[in-house]
């Protein structure tokens, strides 16, 4: 369990993280979402013990993080720009991590390297950005830590690799205590992996909710009413978050249970009615009333 309580971090005049309180449960994938400069990296760097909060506290499994190797044994941090030793090969990096992490699994490293098809003796500096990300993930998974913190790690991975990593995460979560915390500015990237998401904006945590709860409460309905029917008669009774009309086809995003929403729409004797899947981006935009990450409308 990760507990952040009223965490604030400032860099000079800039408040990077502002009074964030957050709980991250074990065994779930936590997605930390926010625009560039929202404070995601700063929050993860505090979570990793790289930075110390100016105010508030962060604990992992009831342990302080900063300068606490016992606590740090439990997590692996993949920075947005992961560091590799000059001219080092993956094997050389592996040997370093092996000495650092008590549960390090060398056999797993070898197996994953083979699975991903990365050359263990090639200099990391000659790897592409995506290959470096893959290597970081392999090293992180081989460390066999309870938590893994990924800062924009999926950015740069091709869809196949992204899917492979997601599968590995899912597999590890099924087999052992494993909690990935993934920070990204790309909602789509986290859509099919996160169980819980937190939305950071301008250093503040706008929301932090279980994805199933969000999805269960917001629905996208496509509907065609009979000619001459005024939809206002039914929509006035619904919590419409978004409405789009193309010809006779109406698309509504509505808050509430699917059963209640459809029941009310049926009172208008629709010619056609269908539930569509909502993307995570749509959920955020609609549930927070934000378009294109411009959340000023919500705050002010």
């Amino acid at each position, binding site marked *: 369990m990760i507990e952040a309580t009223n965490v604030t971090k400032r*860099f000079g005049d800039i408040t990077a993280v502002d009074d964030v309180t957050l709980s991250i449960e074990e065994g779930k994938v936590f997605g930390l979402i926010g625009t560039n400069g929202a404070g995601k990296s700063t929050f993860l*760097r505090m979570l990793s013990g*790289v*930075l110390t909060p100016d105010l508030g506290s962060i604990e992992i499994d009831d342990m302080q993080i900063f300068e606490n*190797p016992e606590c740090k044994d439990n997590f692996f941090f993949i*920075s947005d720009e992961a560091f590799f*030793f000059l001219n080092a090969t993956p094997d050389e990096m592996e040997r370093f991590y092996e000495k*650092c*992490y*008590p549960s390090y699994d060398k056999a797993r490293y070898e197996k994953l390297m083979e699975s991903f098809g990365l050359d263990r003796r090639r200099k990391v500096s000659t790897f592409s950005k995506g290959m470096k990300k893959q290597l970081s993930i392999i090293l992180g998974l081989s460390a066999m830590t309870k938590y893994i913190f990924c800062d924009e790690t999926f950015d740069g991975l091709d869809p196949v690799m992204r899917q492979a990593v997601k599968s590995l995460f899912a597999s590890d979560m099924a087999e052992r205590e494993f909690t990935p915390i993934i920070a990204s500015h790309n909602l789509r990237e986290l859509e099919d992996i996160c169980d819980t998401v937190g939305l950071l904006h301008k250093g503040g945590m706008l929301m932090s909710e279980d994805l199933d709860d969000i999805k269960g409460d917001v629905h996208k309905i496509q509907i065609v009413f009979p000619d001459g029917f005024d939809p206002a008669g039914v929509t006035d009774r619904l919590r419409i978050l978004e409405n789009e009309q193309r010809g006779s086809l109406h698309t509504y995003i509505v808050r509430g249970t699917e059963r209640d929403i459809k029941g009310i729409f049926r009172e208008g004797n629709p010619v056609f009615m269908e539930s569509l899947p909502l993307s995570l981006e749509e959920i955020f935009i609609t549930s927070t009333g934000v378009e294109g990450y411009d959340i000023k409308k919500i705050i002010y």
Partner: protein
Amino acid sequence: MTSKRSFINMLIEDLKRRIWPLTLSIIGFFFALPVLALIKAESHIDSLRLGYDNLASLQESYARYTLGGSNALVIMGLIIMAALNALHGMKYLHSRQEADFYGSIPVLRTTKFAAAYINGILIAIIPYIIMYIFAFVVGLSNGLLNAAGISYGIQTMLLETAGFLLIYSFIIIAAVLTGHTAVTVAAALVLLFVLWAYALLLDGYASLFFVTRYSRSIDYTLNLSPVTLLFKMLTTDSSSLYYPVSSAISAILCVLGTVALFFVSGALIKIRPAEAAGKAMAFDKTKAVIKIIIMVPAAMAFGAFFPSLSDSNSVYGWLVFGIVMGLILAHGSIEIIYDFDFKACIRHIPSAVIGAVITAAIVIYFVFDPLGYDTKLPDRSGIENAAVYLPGINGGSYYSEISYYEDISQSDMHLKNMVLTDLDDVYTLAEAGTEYAKKYRWHGTPAPETIAYEDTPHYIEMSVILRKKNGREFKRSYFIDRNNDANFSALNNIYDTDSYKKNTYEVFMSEDRLEKYDLTVQALSYESGRFSGTSSLSKAAIKALSDALSKETAALTLDYLKEEAPVGYISLNTKPAPGSKAPNIYSIPLGYVYPSFTETLSLLNQYGITTYENPKASEIDYIINVKYTDEEEDISERIDNRAEIERLLPELVSSDFASANYAMLDVDNQTNYEVHFKKPAGQDDEDIYGSSIQYFVKKLGD
């Protein structure tokens, strides 16, 4: 912590990342020691085979220039490795990526830091020691290394290692305090040299503005920078293969300093914010302090620089201009570096104002002398005793080299044992000195040398120590008017004291020196300006001569010194005792011989030494009065007239001795005479009959 990530593991992992500095260290010390050793050995063996030099001398040369502190390549190598290893080892603190990496892994920051710190030392010192051993082997296998040489080499290694450690630790501190490698270099230069620069600047300002400042050696400033301290530790006199005790003490202090700096760095690492990586300074709170520390000497240096360019007597305008420019430039440059932004040069004005106030306070202290450095004397009731040194009483070019071996100034050497208990005379002179200071301190730096040749007043230089009852000393150098009756009377009284003479004239110190330095007298040497000679004498003969010289020197009076210059100078040629650890001193001064020293001159003649008091008209062929116009035109006059020569001779004093008692004897240094002697018929050998030309100056009349 598990054994897996123990300190040793971090040490090994860190070392893997530092292969190129290690390689550089090996190559550098390979050339600086074994390769140089082979080159020197080859050259020395050739010298020995061809008979150019003897084995003992070559062994000493090998020890000194290959294994000793005179091997500049090794010293430079150590300084470069200290800088390189500190910068390379600590660069992880300056990179955001590395800060994230090392900050997140389950290893204590202090463990990582200690591993990087220790490796920086090992990378330099292990190759250094190995290469030293090779150089020892080269020396031993070629017969160029004896026990003294080995000992000297080992001492050098220890001193150099101690110096390296301190320099390295200072640069480490600079790296910890900063967040950017380029700024670290600048910070390291500041930390390494700032105290030294302060000391030099304060000394320079004191010299510039205090009229009564007691001139002292600035050697102490070498202790204020680890770099200059390293060079100082490795300084030996040219005749011995061992270092002074002070070097050993300095080395111990270097090691203690290193240990202290290691713990200070470790403590800073614990609180150093990781976000400092990439910024100029790691700790915001240090910014203002460091800026002020740099601003003050920068402003003082600029303040001293501009007046030095100006020929004007008024230095104060340029001083103020230089200080203001120095403050503005230092403040602006530092703020730009802090923020990596030119626009930052006008930020943080309050700290700049503090720097300006401190600078102003220091400069006001020197310029306006509010504490009365030049003009006040300590309360007489608190004075235990005093000492006075007049360089113009027993000076000249035949000064003793003992002060060099004792690492003490000529004045301190004479003052240190002198105890004058009659303070009336000393205070009379000191008060006259303060009056002079009050008169001249606002007229630029006075030029007493010029004034000294005027009839009235006749200023002479005098150093005074007033020893306080609390153990502290008040030291000043004054200019006093010798022609003032009260002053001359006081001078006379002091001159006549036993302690003054015994600490002024070398003859009274010679026995102690022979004993102290374990020296054996080989011969006696006498210089008379025209003749010089040496004579091997028995101990008894030397004792008799020394006694006569002591007695006649003790009888000297200031009135006599106003009339006569010395006519000769006696010294003892000495030989150090075999195996002695004292400096190898080859000459001990006995002192000047005045015309009134009839007993001394008689003994010298008895010992077969040609003395030569004054030239006789009958010996002289002609005299040339050397003169030049202001346009450098030679208008010298030849004097052949016997009557004119006879009239002139009593007024001449040998230029070799004219400056011995220049505080009392007034001579016209601007008028020189060449006295050309007749050569005995059929004789051309100057060694027997002395120089055919002797140079003289003319005494000034009353």
